[in-house]
């Protein structure tokens, strides 16, 4: 009855492969995260970060562990060695595969020492004051008095109540 152990192993391989492959393709990675019930926060594009990949792998490992427990309960004549090997694999899965992914996305800093150039190239990314800014891609001006939306570009007087679309400070309208 070790077919079921084999199936867990195979499924695990398939998921790990899927995580690695989709992690480098931004659109596919969003889908993969959705598949594993994860939410990507704080960024809109780019390959997966190592932490995101680790989170997805955690879900994969957890699902496999649940299945393995079920098999252990349901099947009596399991090959103990194989079960143990599978548990060992699950225990190491996240750090091991996350490290594999880290190695894939980290520019090589081999013999020529170009790694420092690539590290420096990324050093300024995300350090500008505007990089953490969150804003809506669509904005509609709303009348402060009646709540009606702006009806005409560059016309900041409400078409319904005549109120201002911008609240003005001070009494002189400035």
């Amino acid at each position, binding site marked *: 009855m070790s077919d079921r152990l084999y199936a867990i192993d195979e499924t695990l391989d398939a998921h790990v492969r899927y995580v690695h492959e989709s992690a*480098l393709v*931004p*659109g596919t990675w969003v889908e993969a995260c959705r598949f594993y019930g994860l939410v990507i926060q704080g960024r*809109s*594009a*780019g*390959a997966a970060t190592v932490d995101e990949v680790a989170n997805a792998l955690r879900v994969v490992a957890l699902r496999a562990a649940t299945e393995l427990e079920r098999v252990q309960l349901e099947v009596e004549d399991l090959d103990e060695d194989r079960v143990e090997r599978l548990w060992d694999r699950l225990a190491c899965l996240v750090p091991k595969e996350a490290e594999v992914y880290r190695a*894939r*996305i*980290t*520019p*090589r800093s*081999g*013999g*020529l020492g*170009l*790694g420092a*150039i*690539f590290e*420096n*190239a*990324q050093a*300024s*990314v995300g350090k500008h004051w505007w990089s953490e800014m969150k*804003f*809506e*891609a*669509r*904005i*509609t*001006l709303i009348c402060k008095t009646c709540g009606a*939306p*702006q*009806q*005409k*570009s560059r016309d900041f007087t409400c078409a319904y109540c005549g109120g201002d679309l911008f609240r003005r400070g001070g009494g002189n309208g400035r």
Partner: protein
Amino acid sequence: MNAEQQALCARFEGFLAKIDERLREIMTEAEQGVLALIAQHPTDVMPLGNALSGLDHRVRELKDKIQETWDQQIESKFSALDSGGRFLDVGFDMKQDFEQRFDEQWATFKVRAHSQFYRNLFPLATAAAQKPVPCSQCGAPLEAVDRSVSASIHCVHCGAVNQILRDPAISAYKLGGPHAFADEEALPLRFEIERFRTQVDRQRRATSWANESFESLQRWEQMERAYWQRFVEAKARFGGEPVDHALVESRMAQFRKYDLETNQIWRKGMGLG
């Protein structure tokens, strides 16, 4: 060429082959880094630009070694074996040909890195462009939204004005993609021009520095025009915009002013006095 001269040429070639090998190593390693950088920052060209500047410095240092070694060790040896000025020219030509190939390889690498960035960006920009933009008031999809620029879009359903901010992937692609692809497509013509100029110089050297003929200058002008023509046509094709003939004429005006109109043969041939 006698045995001594052949041996010197072989030694110099060996040195140049080492420099070439080093350049290839840099490019092979840099390619991995560039691809990883593009994967990590698919909508931001700045990290790639930073990396290419750093790599440029490394490559320039490597190229400087050729001149340094030539000045300090090689030129004197070619001079010593020179008989009537011809053998020193052999050394000069070997060095110049190598430097030209070196520059071409590196220029090609940089242009390809940029076009690779935009090729990678294309599906992201396409996906962003296809995404419907709903009105912030009534949720109906807004019509004719160009996400490469920020714009005020009037909802035809509820009348609300939506300020739509540009999409970073689309605007980055539109801003740099056509230029990068056109650069890549026109680059071989630039190399042809440089090789042609080298050949002209050698021809002049072989004829006691006789003036370049008017026909040769005309050919140069045609090649220069062909380069810019190819560039603007490719840019228009990739950008889906009309061919910018004015750019060709402006570049050709600069070229004529600084490269041709300072040449007396050209002026005479054109009747400029």
